[in-house]
């Protein structure tokens, strides 16, 4: 569980809370009955500092900073188990995406979480080539997390031996045009 809450920027928290609860999909948090089905069904709950249920309680309570600093959304692997079982039909997984985006924007990503780096590496691959090649993805991610890559080295060697690692990037025909397309789309979520 997360430690005792403290409010550094009460105003900002209020604003963020209003932003989350003010429209879809976050507004459905208001109907959460705190039953715990989501946390109970989450395969990663043990690793999370708060399960989805507790996270939603924090948000309703106004402890938004804590919620955005929590590792919950980053550990979410989008398995959708919680979402199909939630008795209030709350789109929990979609809310996890929203929280990830907000925590990136607010610079509140938990410091020790590695998923943002992995996602960033992934994004770079897509931007550069339009397709992702595992070896290059690993190499990029490995710049920040060499240990993880080393830990996987044994597997990588095996893969290489089996002809499964491709060191030359696969590309779409015109990555530049794709890049332009992505840029055109990349206005921020709530500027809408």
């Amino acid at each position, binding site marked *: 569980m997360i430690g005792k809450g403290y409010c550094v920027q009460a105003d900002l928290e209020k604003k963020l809370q209003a932003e989350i609860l003010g429209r879809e999909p976050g507004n459905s948090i208001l109907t959460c009955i705190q*039953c715990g089905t989501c946390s109970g069904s989450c395969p990663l709950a043990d690793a999370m500092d708060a399960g989805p249920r507790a996270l939603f309680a924090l948000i309703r309570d106004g402890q938004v900073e804590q919620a955005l600093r929590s590792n919950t959304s980053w550990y979410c692997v989008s398995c959708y188990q919680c979402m199909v079982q939630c008795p209030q039909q709350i789109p929990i997984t979609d809310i996890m995406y929203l929280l990830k985006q907000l925590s990136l924007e607010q610079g509140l990503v938990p410091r020790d979480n590695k998923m943002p780096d992995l996602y960033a590496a992934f994004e770079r691959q897509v931007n550069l080539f339009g397709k992702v090649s595992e070896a290059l993805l690993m190499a990029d991610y490995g710049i920040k997390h060499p240990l993880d890559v080393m830990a996987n080295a044994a597997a990588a060697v095996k893969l290489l031996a089996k002809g499964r690692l491709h060191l030359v990037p696969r590309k779409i025909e015109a990555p530049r045009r794709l890049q332009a397309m992505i840029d055109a789309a990349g206005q921020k979520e709530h500027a809408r």
Partner: protein
Amino acid sequence: MNREIPRIGVYVCHCGMNIAPQVDVEQVAGFAGRLEHVVVARDYKFMCSNPGQELIEDDIKAHNLNRVVVASCSPRMHEATFRKACQKAGLSPYNFQMANIREQASWVTADSGRATAKAKDLVAAAVRRVAFHHPLQTRQVEVNKSVLVIGGGIAGIQAAISAADAGYKVYLVEREPSIGGHMAKFDKTFPTLDCAACIMTPKTVIAGQHENIELLTYCEVVGLEGFVGNYKARILKKPRYVDEDKCTGCGTCMEKCPTRKIPSGFEENLTFRPAIYSPFPQAVPKTPVIDADNCRLLAKNKRCGVCAKFCEADAIDFNQEPRHLEITVGAVIVATGFSAFDPSPMVQYGYGLYPEVYTSLQFERLNNATGPTAGRILMKDGRVPRKVAIIHCVGSRDKNHLPYCSRVCCMYSLKFSHLVREKTGAEVWSFYIDMRSPGKLYEEFYNRVQAEGVHLVRGKVAMVTDIVDQPGSGNLTVVAENTLTGRNLRLPVDMVILSVGLQPARGAEEVARMTGISTDGDGWFTELHAKLAPVNTPTAGIFLAGCCQGPKDIPDTVAQAMAAAGQATALLAKGTVETQAEISSIDPDTCSGCRSCLEVCPYNAIYFDEGRRVAVVNDALCQGCGSCAATCPSSAAAVAQFNDRQVMAEIDAILA
């Protein structure tokens, strides 16, 4: 036609804070005062209160009013109240009209200016209309002094006994071979842990033997028509293939029947029954039925007849056919109860996949002294469970299934916890979202079960699986978050009980359609008023009792059954009912004899007078639907209180 000059009084209600701040009632009253024929117009805090009604009565006398308009709530709420007030002051109750400015203006309009404007229109319409009202005549018709009760659970049984004790003839129709409903399956009942059979059997026996009660088991109501005081019901009597008059209930036939492997519905499919059966030993009536779909002789055309051979009373009759009965009654009590939610679609709980996952009704049978294990709580392999999980809110409080709280399952889950602890000493883990125990001695029962060492975990179970983390620790694993610690549990257990929710009985929609009762979004029958008329329906003479109106426990069911019987017998005791005044009449001078109306009348209430060559309405049959009026090309047919001038006046005023 009435030629007197209208003198109208208008009363605008504040309804406390329900109308007043949103609708400017003073302004509306002021506006009304300036309308044609209006003599007085007032606003008042609560028109339906005694002083409010007296205000009307006094004004009628003081100002010689001959028409009254009240602008307040829905006429479905208080029309009768104000009509009575008019009558008390000597005015015809039909010289009254209501404008609904609460449900249609103050409560539904965001802007108060617009709400006020709308209220004015509605008042103007009522005023213009009421000018065309005139006194109507009604007749007193005799009430048939008998009651039809549909459904023979504890609700129907109690309602039948209460009405029969009051001296009225009761027909108790139950579609199963015997009466008792769900309660007949239970062993103990919360919160007192009374033995269900001990408190129920006397009732079923009384119902079976009461001189005023005619039990119609294995029967279904297939048609209902008529009106308050005079309902005609068509009843289908399904063939039992056993002559009720000859059968002594000895049970020999059931013992001898060679077809034995039919899952027993009464035992919740935990065990089997023969093709000729009586659901349970204390069944009332005791007469068995042959299940024609499974009997060798009837279904498979094989030679058998073993039952007939052994029946000393010669009661078996393979030639019985379905029969129809017609009965006439003054009132109907609907008591069709509920059915338990089938948890199979909730695959995460493994019902139907894992043998040790039971529904609550199955557990009731497992725990019942007359059930398949003679009341011992055993697993299918015969072992006593060491760890049992009980899961609350299965199906209930879940928008994917039943959105509402089923109200009895927290309590019966506590009952199960106690019984498992008492009978097996097993560890009990009960998983709840909220513990709902609002009732006399219910919280005390909850506390008692807590003290017995039951593990009550606040958290809805996410999954039941046969994946066991440590071999030998149990055959199932229950996965849930304990929301009070924030930790996930993976609990090995031997047995899981699903506390399934309650939903309307199978076939409830048909009953609703037949009786003209409406249902709410979840399928429960709707009462006339949630607080003030909980056993009445909008159709006079039809009443509700028990779980068919919504989930409730036995005490509430019985209370409601007695209330329904009280309402029904009050009606019968009165002896007569006033006929409806709002019926059609045909002006013989205008009727052209085209006969169009005869075709459209759904009640065959119009006949053709060959002598005068005009159509005539039979006012005992007419229900006032107005089909004839809308069809008549000569405008000869008209429904009182809804004639063209009245309706057109209303439209005129709104558009003025």
